[in-house]
């Protein structure tokens, strides 16, 4: 079973993603912040990280992505940015930070499932 890490400060979003993806036989782990994401990712080594861009607390989604992509241990993780709709800059910055793909909030759960399947093959 593939491991997916969902990183978002909003618990509702996390729960929704979990509810969505757990139907498809993925193992879901959660992180609340960018900081937590880096530690959890290192420890759990998920196959996919769904990373919210806007997060408080010093390390936002972009920074966390950068850190993870630079770290040889976690470089292999695929990272999907969860960005706000219409923020073109977020997308650009996300890719610049090393993200592999992006997804827009608010999202359709079906769309999310398809995206995840695409990315994980």
């Amino acid at each position, binding site marked *: 079973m593939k491991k997916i890490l969902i990183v978002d*400060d*909003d618990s*509702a*979003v996390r*729960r*929704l*993603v979990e*509810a*969505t993806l757990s*139907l498809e036989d993925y193992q879901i782990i959660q992180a609340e912040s960018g900081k937590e994401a880096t530690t959890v990712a290192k420890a759990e080594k998920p196959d996919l990280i769904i990373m919210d861009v*806007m*997060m*408080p*607390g010093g390390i936002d989604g972009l920074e966390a992505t950068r850190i993870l992509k630079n770290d040889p241990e976690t470089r292999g993780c695929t990272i999907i940015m969860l960005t*706000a*709709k219409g923020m073109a800059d977020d997308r650009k910055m996300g890719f610049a930070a090393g993200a592999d793909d992006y997804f827009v*909030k*608010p*999202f*359709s*759960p*079906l769309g999310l499932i398809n995206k995840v399947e695409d990315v994980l093959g």
Partner: protein
Amino acid sequence: MKFRNENTMLTEKTEGTRQLRSLLSTIRNINKLIIRERETDRFLQGICDNFVESREFSYAWIALPDNSGAPVSFAVAGPGEECLAIKEILKSGELPSCGKKALAQSEIVVIEDPSPTCAGCPVAEKVVDNVAVIVRLESHGNVFGVLALSIPKDKFIEKEEPALLKEIADDIAFALHAMETEKKRKAAEESLRQSKEKYRLLAENTSDVIWVTDMDLRFTYISPSVESHIDYTPEEMMSLTIDRILTPGSLEVAYRAFEEEKDIEASGLQYPFRTRLLELELIRKDGSTAWTEVKMSPVRDPEGRWSSIQGVARDITERKQAEKRIKKHSEKLERMVKERTSEIRRSLYDTEEARDRMDGILKSVADGLIVTDIYNRIILMNRAAEDLLGVRFSEVIDRPIEVALHDETLRELLKTTLERRGTGHQFDYELQGEDPEHPGILRARTSIIEGKDSKYSGVIIILSDVTLERELDRMKSEFISMAAHELRNPLTSIMGYSELLMIRDDIKEEERKKYISNINKQSVILAEIINDLLDVSRIESGKGFTLNKVPSDMFHIIREVTSSFQLQTDKHTFDIILPEEPVEVMLDREKMEQVLGNILSNAVKYSPEGGAIRLSAKKLLDFGIGDSEPEEDEKESAFRALHSALEISIADQGIGMTPDQVQKIFDKFYRADTSNTTISGTGLGMSIVKQLIEAHDGKVWVESKLGKGTTVRFAIPVRVQQGRGPVQS
């Protein structure tokens, strides 16, 4: 022998007597000559001739030399060639040596020849047996010359003759002196006569009047030209006194001058040849007046005493008239100039007034104003512009705008804008202000000034400080993005869960229920956010919201709101300290719940570690004006003075605020710390609280200590209605 001696003696005596007689006769003749003769040469010659004829001298000569000793006048008498020889010597400009000798001494020189004195004298050789008598002619201290006589020895009366001859010589000298004096007198007389003649010519021919008065100011002489001046003849003038011919004013001037001069004269201090110049007005024979300029000076007698006054008078009537004309003319000119000046001054005043008015307008215009001419020189700048740019108009007036501004960037921007020459160009420029974090933003807008004939005649640049606008814009867009962010999250849940419910059949019933509950909860949150936004827009647009004020039990509302909050958080405790007796307040319940909700929400949000949140209420009595304590906030005391009110305070033990944050707390969109997005919110909560409290005629204020906590207090007036019991909650 005795007989012959007696005879000789008798003959000698007779001869002696005869000689004396002839000497006396000579003297008589010479005296006659002295009396009679006036002409020097004839006189001299006459004397010499007399000596020779009457006295039978061999020869006689007189010579009158000048200072160098050369004979100027001379006479020689006597027969023979000796005379010629003497004449030659005298003519040659030399005195014979005997003459020189005699000239040098006052005693008579008697020479018996041969004598060494005569050596070399051509006469001496020819004359033998003679005695020469030479005597100096002097009188009154002057030496005129010498008289020389040559007498045969036998005729010479040795004893008496020299003395007698000396006497004759003195008489001759006296005569010469008298003649000289006479000559001098005659010369002086002639000189005086000539000068008088010249003077007379002058006086009669000049048009100026020459006059002389005595010390009583009566005319002793007046030239004929006086007639052409004042129509009186000189004869008539002599009989007039000056008061007849001078106007009273001029008369006074004349008398005063005369007195002054007399005083000066008496003091003896002044320079003796004084001239005085006066302008006097004369009265003509026909009564008309004329102006004359008189130059006068004192005339002195031989003793130096002031004896008369002489003067020259010139008619200056014409000059005076010309002066008067000029004066009138210049007065007229002055008047014209004055008029013109006051005209100019008036129009200047009007211009100044207009300018002052414009200045006033410019000054009060809050935006900066700069006007440049076609050469880009600054010709106008108002106070606001001075403040914005940090230059004084007086420093930059008429200077090209590039030169005038210190800031290079601004200068460049302005320059390029002005070069473009179009109208309506605009640019924003960042001012380096005191706070580098928050630079001011200056907006410059240019506008072409069209002069006459629609020709380009300059540019108006309007400078506005748009810092605040920008700030507000920034805050608004920040708010909107924040609001959008806030909206997104609940929406994500709603969309997500509802879709899941739609597409999946394999969701467990428990899960299903959870999903639906979530959707509902998020919808509610969404609704709240939207409500807030609507409130904001209402506040923004200035439209009031209507309050539905009903008598309500404040404490009940407090308790209700507080308990619902207690459910949402277990980190916080809510302590309610309220008086037992309920208080009825006229208020809109819904709005009051919102107020309390917003305040409590902040209290919870800003004490993330938890802690106690205390709510208390206090009744404020009507203190009346003047009873307020001086330390209290003015608003508070004034408020208290006017109403009886209910004060509610909500205190948390959270992170508190800085004084700066306290000041801004009621500002729209203001969030104390936007970087910390865990504390979510629209930044409108307290703004809404303030609006709502003030809509109830209340007041709200905040006290806070950083790190300790915040207390929000508000007070609303209580309107106690008579005859009503406690309100049912």
